[in-house]
């Protein structure tokens, strides 16, 4: 059963940036795009389990810092290999300046 988890304040993430969010023994990233949309995906690259929180956010994509795989943060889809598997994505909502993720 998924729950809405209070992950961070909107102001904790700059535009086109990312933070790591650990919850329940798992690691996620929360991304803020250039238009202030928030996304949550798994925190490790599907290629070699590198933390995506060190990655580069451009618009609504994130690039893995190790081997340059690029993922669409909204859908989790691989835009550029070497990753083959898409990222899992999780719903987000913003309420009262807080970002909630459905995990």
């Amino acid at each position, binding site marked *: 059963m998924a729950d809405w988890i209070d992950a961070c304040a909107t102001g904790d993430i700059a535009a086109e940036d990312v933070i790591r969010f650990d919850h329940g023994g798992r690691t996620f990233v929360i991304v803020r795009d250039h238009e202030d949309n928030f996304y949550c995906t798994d925190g490790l690259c599907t290629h070699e389990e590198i933390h995506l929180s*060190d990655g*580069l956010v451009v618009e609504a994509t994130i690039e893995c810092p*190790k081997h*340059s795989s690029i993922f669409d943060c909204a859908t989790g889809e691989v835009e550029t*290999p070497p990753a*083959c598997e898409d990222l899992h994505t999780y719903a987000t909502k913003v309420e009262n300046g807080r970002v909630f993720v459905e995990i």
Partner: protein
Amino acid sequence: MSHVVVIGAGQAAASLIAKLRAGGFDGRITLVGEEPVVPYQRPPLSKAYLLGDMGLDRLYLRPEAWYGEQDVTLRLGVRVERIDRDAKVVALDGETIAYDMLALTTGSVPNRLPNAIGGALDGVYTVRTLADVDAMAHEFRAGARALIVGGGYIGLEAAAVASKRGVTVTLVEAAERILQRVAAPQTSDYFRALHGSHGVTIREGVGLKALTGGPRVSGAELADGSRLDVDFVIVGVGIRPAVALAEAAGLALDNGIAVDAQGRSSDPAIWAAGDCASFPHGGGRLRLESVGNAIDMGELVAENMLGAGKDYVARPWFWSDQYDTKLQIAGLNTGWDEIVTRDSGGGVVSFWYYAGARLLAVDAMNDSRAYMVGKRLIEAGKSPDKAVIADAAADLKPLLKA
């Protein structure tokens, strides 16, 4: 087009096949490979896999079942004997397979030392295939003495793994400095110091005269007359494109299989991608030995087989892991005349190659942000102010929008 045959089961092949199916190709695909396994990642062979930190299952690019799901016929552990272009068949293992389109993704083969100087002695290894690395793994035991011949990335990575496993390592490089062919002196200096701090002896400007012993290697004579006792040897003296099949079939060669901007060889039914292929670039031809190139060219050939008519635009990038240092390289540094250093301290440093005001390439050590921003700047043809690059406190990301 109803049957695509792909020869060579590595990264380029895996990318090509996936892209063919993603692009809607519903004909037959046959993948023929000499090695007995499905396509796997080669880079970890000289890094995490050799160190024992990464298992075989994580090496595979796709699980074996994926090929069945994608309706790809696998012919692994099989050597193609020849290509008959007139009949459009490939001969292997006592049979012939007809193709409508053929893709050559045969990769490259490591250069070996001549037998006359001990290249065939037992205990002398090259690093290219899973079998190569499985064969040498037992040598990496504490107290053993290794000689690494060649100070390129493969030799340096092998030296790092051996050193971490307690092996006493000497690396010889015939050129004046390690990484001379591929990097600026600053990068060579960085890695010389790194290896020195881990107890590896690096001897530059000293060639190997001969390996001695028999049937197993036991020593080495160097060009300066010195001798070493060794227990095993790893040879990392470059690779060459695997073109034997293409050559026998009469395809045009030029530092690899010569393809046009779309990846087609001199025979319009035969394509090539990855390490084995050279493509038009800057008025000449370029051949890249990298995962990124294998992926991009493999995907491009798949799209062009399906009629996309796209020209290849290389986006060169490379990486190397040695000890805890992560090197990432974007661009091609050929023709550089100035290195701009961005040093954040603690081994986090990047070297930016310029030709005049134009940014060509970046070597980033433990600085993935510099690499990622540099790669995008180079791909966009942007050349940032050198003063901003040299200021380690300056945020690089705004340069992307400048």
